[in-house]
């Protein structure tokens, strides 16, 4: 029988990334003062290492604004 206890998450950036359904609220504050507060029903988070390879970056340059 599988252990029902989830393994602790030791990653420095917290839980897995990707779609996060459910109501969320994002608070931006500075020196204890709330600057902005955003509420939404869905929340996407992507977590990646920066793309720095010149050949890969060159592909990003092509689209005109």
């Amino acid at each position, binding site marked *: 029988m599988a252990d029902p206890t989830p393994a602790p998450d030791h990653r420095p*950036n*917290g839980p897995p*990334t990707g*779609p996060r359904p*459910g*109501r*969320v*609220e*994002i*608070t*931006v*504050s*500075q020196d204890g003062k709330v*600057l*902005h507060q*955003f*509420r*939404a*029903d*869905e*929340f*996407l*988070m*992507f*977590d*990646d*290492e*920066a*793309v*720095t390879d010149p050949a*890969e*970056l*060159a592909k*990003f*340059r092509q*689209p*005109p*604004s």
Partner: protein
Amino acid sequence: MAANIDPIVRHMFVCDDLVRSSRSPDQWDALGVVNYIRPAVPGRYPVRLRQIAVVVQLAGGRGVGQGYILVVSADTEDPVFASPVHTWNYPPDPLRVLPVVFRIRECSFPRSGLYWVQFWHRDRKLAEYTVQVE
């Protein structure tokens, strides 16, 4: 099949990270909004950051979204680093706001100057934010 329609960007900002709030599991706090970056040792470049988080709040998108973050030197117009391209589905109700957070690790700014942090969506630049490296 529904057409894909680009969203509008309601807000965009760069911060150190978003973390779950101790107040509620549904609440997230944006830490350390980034406008200026100073090298740890004055005059020493490149400036390396363990991570930045780029937050864009999207509304009005339909169908499938596809986007990425591109950081460009304003002086040279050279791309410095980028996030990978990601794909997502928009909520059925286009009026709903969809926050999208790009956490980008191991960021390196080669020299002092102004940098554009750009949000691209299906080959269109929809928004940009400036960061000054001092």
